[in-house]
Structure formats: C-alpha cells, structure tokens
C-alpha cells in the first residue's frame, strides 16, 4: 500500500481546483441548482473530453485513462469542496463502478467508453420508495419473453435519474438480483425529478411499465456487483464529504479571524477556538481515513467492506458537524440564503443520508468486524 501523495497527484488536485474555480464557482452552482438537471453541458464536456476526469479510474481498454481510485478520490474531494452539482458521482462512480464490477465484458466494451468520455450520462437505480439502501429490498421485476427482458416497478432516490441517458437498473429476475441497462428514452419509462432539500443533489423517481432492458451478465450476478459498488461508492462519497468538510472549516476559520466583537477577533475566544480545534481533529482524522480507504480500493484489499462502512459513518457525522458549526460561528449572516454556509449544511445532510447514515453504517461495521 502506498499513502504518500505523488507530484502527479498534487498536479491533478491543483488542475481540478483551478478548473472548478474558473468554470463552476459557487455563484454558478447557485444558478444551476435552480435548474431541473443542474448540468452545465460545456463544463461536463470539458471535464470528460478535455480533462479526462470522467474516465480517470476506467482502464484504458474501455476508453478511460487507467489511473487508480486514489486519483479519483482526489477529484471527488475537490468536487465536494466546490459543491459541484453535476452527475459526476452518478455516472463516473456509481454506473462506471457497476459496469467494471460486472462480469459482462461485452457491456463494458459497449457502455464504458461513452461514460468515460462524457457523451453519455449514466446512473445506477437501486433504491425504491421505501428508501432502503439494502439491495435485497428490491421489488422491481424483470421478466423474459423470448429473448427480451421487460422491467416493471419503480425506483426512487435515483441520483441524476432525470438527466441520465443510460440507467443501470437493479431488478429481480428469475428470483435473484440482476442488473439491466435501460435507455432513458425507452417506451414505458416515466421519470419525475424530485424536489430536494439539497438543491445541488438531483434525485428522480422512475416508473417502469414493461420497459425494455439489456441484461448485464446473468441473472443473479448483481448481488455481488452491488455489494462492491456500494462499498466503493461509500468511500467515494466520503472523499466528497472530506472536501466539503474542509471547505466549511476553512470558511469558519477565516471568518473568525476577521470578524470582530468586543474589540477582538471572535476566533480569539476559546468558546470558538476550541470548537474549531475539535473540528480540525475530525477533519484531519477523516482525511487520514479517506487516504487509507482510497488506497484500500486501489489495492483491491479485503479490508474494503469494513473500511467503507467505517469511513462513511465517520465522514457523514464529521461533515454535518463542521457544516452546522460553520453556520453557528458565522452567526446571523450564516443563517441567510445569501451566504454559502447553508449550501454546505444541506449538502452535508443529503450526503449523510445518501447511501446510509452513521448509525446504519456503524451497524454494518459491527457486522463486518464480527462483533
């Protein structure tokens, strides 16, 4: 395992940060969050074709640039810091990881290059109205007529489900979990974009009425695929949460240095200084954990399942804690719509709930270390 940051990784971080500063600063995030899909097509294209960010962790044989998950985690951290609201997580993480983990070489060759280039936005639809993150709760069914599969049922909380052109759908086929690729324009598919607490995170509900789908692999393959995807996604989200938490802490620290009350900067009061010291402890611990978890994914370590739940639980609570304290430390201005603190606060909450919160993942961790 290697943990040190290489010069190339530092350059990658700097270039992603520069790109987001220039092309997706917070005022632009605010404009886009008011739109149904939250996507700036020019930025998306540049991220894919020009910078190669969308296929960073996709092997070269499938049109990616073949870097490891450690590099992708750096990109995710920067996206989280910038509150990027486009479909990176849905397409480059959820969908790409699902295809890479599936045993279907044909599907990988057909679908991954377009995802890596950004030509196609993809997502993974695995949750339903009950909001369970457990793939075993899947009810949507796939039935076979001749050579064709048809999907019936619904999905909800689908990340960027309103804008994706390609939807990987988790279904029960022949009584076991299976993955299907569905074209967003397919007949019988109705998509509703849902209003979200965190407007930078777009969710949709999908109704399937006899929708044609392409089976990925064989019936029953998807249980193992989803287990792996959800572990990698938990670590990827933790990297995003780290970026957001660090930025929210930076905001609080900077403000408390310049804001004066009672004739002194408020950051000189121990009531605030000590809270920010505790936040630094959490953010730095999270950084150590994300570094380790990303290296574990890159190495294909057997520790990944336990580490994934550990880091998702810790990231969820750390980011929310920092984002909430950031509002409190800003005082009145932090409670306004105009100030950016609420954007981080809401993103922290949606990130905490998405893929399961701290208590959910601690129970999984307890299970995975065989308590």
């Amino acid at each position: 395992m290697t943990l040190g940051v290489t010069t190339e990784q530092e350059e990658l971080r700097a270039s992603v940060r520069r790109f987001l500063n220039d092309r997706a600063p917070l005022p632009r995030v605010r404009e886009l969050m008011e739109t149904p899909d939250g996507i700036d097509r020019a930025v998306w294209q540049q991220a894919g074709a020009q910078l190669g960010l969308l296929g960073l962790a996709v092997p070269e044989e499938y049109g990616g640039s073949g870097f490891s998950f450690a590099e992708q985690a750096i990109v995710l951290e920067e996206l989280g810091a910038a509150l990027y609201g486009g479909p990176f997580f849905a397409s480059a993480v959820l969908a790409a990881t699902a295809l890479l983990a599936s045993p279907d070489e044909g599907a990988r060759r057909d679908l991954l290059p377009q995802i890596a280039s950004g030509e196609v936005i993809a997502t993974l639809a695995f949750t339903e109205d009950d909001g369970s993150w457990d793939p075993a709760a899947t009810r949507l069914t796939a039935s076979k007529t001749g050579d064709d599969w048809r999907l019936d049922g619904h999905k909800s909380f689908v990340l960027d489900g309103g804008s994706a052109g390609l939807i990987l759908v988790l279904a029960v086929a022949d009584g076991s979990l299976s993955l299907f690729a569905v074209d967003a324009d397919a007949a019988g598919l109705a998509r509703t974009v849902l209003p979200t607490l965190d407007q930078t995170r777009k969710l949709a509900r999908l109704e399937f009425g006899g929708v044609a789908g392409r089976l990925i692999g064989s019936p029953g393959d998807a249980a193992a695929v989803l287990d792996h995807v959800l572990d990698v996604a938990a670590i990827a989200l933790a990297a995003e949460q780290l970026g957001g938490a660090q930025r929210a802490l930076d905001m609080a620290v900077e403000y408390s240095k310049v804001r004066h009350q009672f004739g002194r900067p408020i950051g000189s009061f121990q009531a605030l200084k000590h809270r920010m010291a505790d936040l630094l402890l959490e953010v730095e611990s999270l950084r150590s954990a994300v570094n380790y978890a990303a290296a574990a994914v890159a190495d294909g370590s057997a520790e990944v399942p336990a580490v994934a739940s550990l880091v998702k639980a810790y990231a969820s609570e750390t980011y929310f804690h920092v984002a909430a304290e950031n509002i409190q430390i800003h005082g009145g201005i932090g409670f306004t719509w105009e100030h950016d603190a609420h954007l981080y606060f809401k993103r922290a909450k949606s990130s905490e709930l998405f893929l399961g919160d701290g208590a959910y993942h601690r129970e999984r961790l307890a299970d995975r270390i065989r308590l």
Partner: protein
Amino acid sequence: MELDLGPEIAQFRAELRDWIAAQAPPGLAALFDWNMVMTAGGRRGEQLARAMAHPAYAQWSATLQENRLICPQWPAEFGGQGMDAVRVAVLNEEFHRAGVPRVNRGMGESLVGPSIIVHATPEQRAYFLPRIISGEDVYCQGFSEPNHGSDLAAVETRGVVNGDEIVITGQKVWTSGAARANRMFLLCRTDVRAEKHAGLSYVLIDFTDPGVTYRPIKQLSGAAEFCEDFIDGVRAPLFNVIGGLNNGWRVAMTTLGHERGGRATVAHLGYEREFWELVETARKRGKTGDPLIRQRLAWAYTQVELMRYSGLRTLAQLAAGRPPGPEASVAKLFWSEYHKQLGEIAMAIEGADGMLRPDGDGYAVTPWQGVFLSSRAGTIYSGTSEIQRNIIGERALGLPKEPRLVG
C-alpha cells in the same frame, strides 16, 4: 495493509526481524505483556517491575546497548545511530511483532536527551548523555507546581546562584516515576525581576539528595502513580544548568516539542488489543447483540482505526521527507478523549456489576474500572485538552491568541 516504504526500508525491516529472532533471550517475550496500554489498571506496575528484574531483561538491554539500539534516534556522536523516524517506526513495529521490549530510557531519552543535544555544551553532553543510554541516570520531571500546572512559565521554585553552584528550593508535583528516578530535570526561577518566561533556568538535580523528599499522591483510582516533591536547598553545580542561566524556557520547549513520528504506527496497538478485550467482555456478558452497545463498540473500533490511519499517514509523510501534518498535532487530544469514552463504554457493558469492586486491600478495582477511572488523567497531564485546543487553534489553524491580561 502494510505501508510500502520502498526496498531500502523493506530490507532494513527484514534484517531487523532476523536479528531480533536471533538475539532475543528465550522467554523474554513471555515474561510480560510489554506492549499493552499503560493505563489498563490492575497490578501492572508490580508485574512490570518483576519482569524488568529478570536476568533475560538485563541481557536484552546489554545486547541492545552494544548494538546502539538504545536511543537509536540520537546522533551517532552522542551514542545513538542517527536513526530517522521511519526506521524508528519500523523498529517499534518489529519489536511489537516479536513481543519484546524496546528498552527505552523514559524521559531521559524522550525529553532530557534532546534538550541536552540541542542546548548543552560539549562537556555537558559528554557527561550526561552516556549516563542516560546506560540507564545509570533515570530522570523524573520537575515542571508542574501546586500553583502552576498549565501556566508553566509562572513556576515559583527558586534557584539561587552561589559561587559555582545553584541552590534550589521549592515544591513540585505530579511527578511520575519518582521512586525509580535518581535525577530530576526541573524549571526554577533564577531571575525574579525578569518577565516571567525570561527568568527561568533548566537544571538537572540529584534526586537522591537528602534535601529532596517526595510523597506519593493517592489518585481517584486508588493507585499512587504520581508524587509531590519538596526540594529544600538542594545544591547542584552550575555545570548542571542546561542552555545557560535564565534560558530555561527555551530549553523546556525543545523538550516538549521533541516526541514525534517514531511511535506513529505503534501508538494505536495497545488500544486495539484493549478494544478486542472489551469485545470479549461484552461477549461473555451477552451484550454484543444489544444494538446500542454494538453502536458504541463500532464507534470505539472506528476511533482506534482512525489512530492507525493517521499514524500511517504520518509515516508516509516522514518517508517522503516531509514533516508530519496536522494529524500529528491532534494525536494527544484524540487518544486521551477517546480513552475516557472507552472507559464509559466498558462501564455500560459491565452494567450493575460496575458498581461493585472486587475484594482486596485498599481500593481494589476491576481492570475495566481501572480504565474508567485512570483514563480521566489523560486529558489533564502533558497539557490538558483545553491547552491542546489552544495550541491546535493557534498553531494549526492560525487563530488569534487570547489577549493577555495586563498587570
């Protein structure tokens, strides 16, 4: 997963592992659980003393000394081998793996030696450093006083220069290891007119001097690991003043700043063992199915893992030739606050039985009661959590200092 530190370090590790296997006296590892968390209560202190009195320990110490593996991080000219923090970390890991003691020289190695190396004259180094390595001089710390704990620079113990001697009178407190020490390094005021940081000197005194008396302080845990010390006109040659008269604050600060890196990847090991012992206790009590206990145990496991990840991150930084990051500056706050929580989880697992002490002399406690009680000290000694947060806030975050009261 083990950190890949490159072929040179891998070779160093392999050779060291073979060397330990060949050199460690048979039975040494079985003498004592050398690597358990120190605060785990019970009769650990007595067991440790017995193990250290065993001939195998003396033999091992001599072997380590011949091979410059005592204080190996000190520069070669001062008796070490200038070992870098990465190799010290590997050394610690391999000694842990083999279950053999590192044989460290306590505060002499970690605090006094570095101060002498940085601030002392060649003659002082030549005299004091070899005596630390050989174990001839064992130091205890004389910093805190009854009226001055966190506000260390306000010490009142006086040092009066008389010819080529300094005469010291005052009271020190919270001294650990007083009974084993033959020397004390202390801060005393040698210029009462100077601004408070400016009038202090750092002096090494003979702790067996008849002018020194010390008394154990019974702690809330029932144990007595600390002493209060009365120093009444103890004389030391000016040769024993390190860094010159009235320069003690700088020397003391070197002391406190010199403990990073080498233990980064072993610091969590004791907590890891302790965690699994608590899981065993919870199993025996049928508590591992309780969802609330499971949450708390998973939380504790997370904290121990975070210590491990941060240690690896620090080591990776050092291996890349960079200084440790902010994760190292929060380490003390992290483990001390964690350990209090662990003590509380242990008491939740003990349930009603936690109210009962075992039979025995004095205030006997169970090991988990010992953890619960003694862990309260961790957030007080070596800089309280509040002092830690001030330091983190001001140094790592760059927050403004509290304005000083004038007058």
